[in-house]
């Protein structure tokens, strides 16, 4: 499974004022790995993603990517945010362009990639629509297209499908896997949904509640495409439920 070497190293304590959110949280991620970070709401998952993206300075410790501390200006990152993040003043197409624009990808290449991504997420015909004109699911697909348009070697996804209905979510999950398989990059996928984690991940990192540490790290060695009815799937789901507490 761990095809490349260690891509990401996290060893961090994070505080907001007196509130200790992450308590010496340590883990590493291999290159081209698909990792799900699983935890209850409020345990600090978004904080972890922000630290990985270098959007937040560490209170203590460090996050390193390829041996240097996380800094979006030095790494090729992509981020699908939990909250709605499309720029409302740009059309679907122009939203997808953002990353490429910043990376100064030359025009013909840029156009080609944008067109590819639009095709990939099934938004052809909606290129000139503004975010307010499309549904929540479409917005999320635009956000994904935007993240995957750049040649990121680390893709961060923070509960990207939490706001979607189940059917749409399944479609999107399959799509993310397809893209990951095609591009072979490293993905850190944050979620509080057990089945989603099992369906997607090669490895699941389970977090405790605040102050947050690692409760477990489980490899998922089920064949793809994964089947919710597979006994291994059900067993793993049970195991994770126990780890996360009775409410699950």
């Amino acid at each position, binding site marked *: 499974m761990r095809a490349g070497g260690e891509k990401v190293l996290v060893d961090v304590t994070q505080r907001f004022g007196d509130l200790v959110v992450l308590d010496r949280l340590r883990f590493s991620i291999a290159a081209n790995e698909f990792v799900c970070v699983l935890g209850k709401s409020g345990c600090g998952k978004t904080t972890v993603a922000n630290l990985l*993206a*270098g*959007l937040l300075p560490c209170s203590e410790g460090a996050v390193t990517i390829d041996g240097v501390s996380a800094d*979006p*200006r*030095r*790494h090729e*990152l*992509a*981020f699908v*945010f939990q*909250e*709605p*993040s499309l*720029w*409302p*003043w*740009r059309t679907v197409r122009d939203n997808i362009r*953002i*990353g490429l*624009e*910043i*990376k100064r990808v030359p025009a013909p290449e840029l156009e080609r990639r944008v067109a590819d991504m639009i095709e990939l997420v*099934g938004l052809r015909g*909606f290129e000139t*629509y*503004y*975010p*307010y*004109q*499309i*549904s929540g*699911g*479409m917005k999320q697909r635009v956000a994904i297209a*935007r993240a995957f348009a*750049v040649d990121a070697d680390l893709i*961060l996804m923070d509960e990207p499908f939490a706001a979607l209905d189940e*059917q*749409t979510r399944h*479609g*999107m999950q399959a*799509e993310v896997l397809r893209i990951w398989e095609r591009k072979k990059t490293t993905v850190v996928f944050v979620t509080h949904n057990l089945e989603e984690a099992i369906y997607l991940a090669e490895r699941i990192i389970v977090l405790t509640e605040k102050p947050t540490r690692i409760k477990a790290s489980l490899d998922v060695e089920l064949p793809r495409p994964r089947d919710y009815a597979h006994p291994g799937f059900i067993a793993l789901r049970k195991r994770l439920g126990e780890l996360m507490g009775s409410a699950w």
Partner: protein
Amino acid sequence: MKVEADVLEVARAASVPATAGRGRSLRVLLHNAVAALAVLAAWQVATWVVRSVFFPSPWQVARALVDLGLNGDVAGHTLLTHMWWSMARLAAGFLMGVLLGVPLGLLMGLYKPLYAGTRAALEPFRFIPPIAWIPLTIVLLSGFSRYVFLIWLGAFFPIFVATLVGVPRVEPIHKNVAKVHGAGRWYILRKVVIPSILPDILGGMRVGMGTAWMTIVAAEMSGGETTGLGRMMVNYAELIRIPEIVVGMILIGALGFAMNEVLLRIEQRLFRWRWEVTL
């Protein structure tokens, strides 16, 4: 993937303004015509009630308008000259207000210490009405520059303040989208901050436009130039000819309304991405 459902949703969203558009705009037009007629009627009734030789009827004002339009005013200027000069002064002062208000608002919005360190020196000016500056400008400035300065005073603060308070309200997530791809400050300013606060700026501009009109008329009334709608009105006030004064009032109202509509149209054009443009 539920593409069909999405398409339906899109169709619904797009169709709302399209189908309702024509019928509604006709009805709105009708309402406005009725309201305007009601104002006229109330005015006519008022002339019957007040019964002062100096309180003009709509008819007298209409006659004065035609007379002014055809023969010019008592000082030998045409109505167009007065309108042109008022608008030219207004445009120059307003443009200065935008050119100074937006960059300064951006600068101080982005660099909080700059604003914090100067606000005691800056903010008090906000509460001095431009009209209060008139006596001082009569001592210090002459002609065109005096009006431009006064209008600039009137337009600057609404625009500056709108920009200033808009900057911290930019959604952090929109900035983060650019940041994760390694965007620099300049890119974020140009592509995130400015588009985000543009509606605020335009709103400030419309407020500033109102202040500018108030200021220009008061300034022209203070004297020193022979043209401008404010000047024309004072001239007729001195001749105790009220119908011509009311003509001036109506023209100011109409020009102000027209300019506001232009700004609104620009807003609607620019901000097609917003559901609606607020008044």
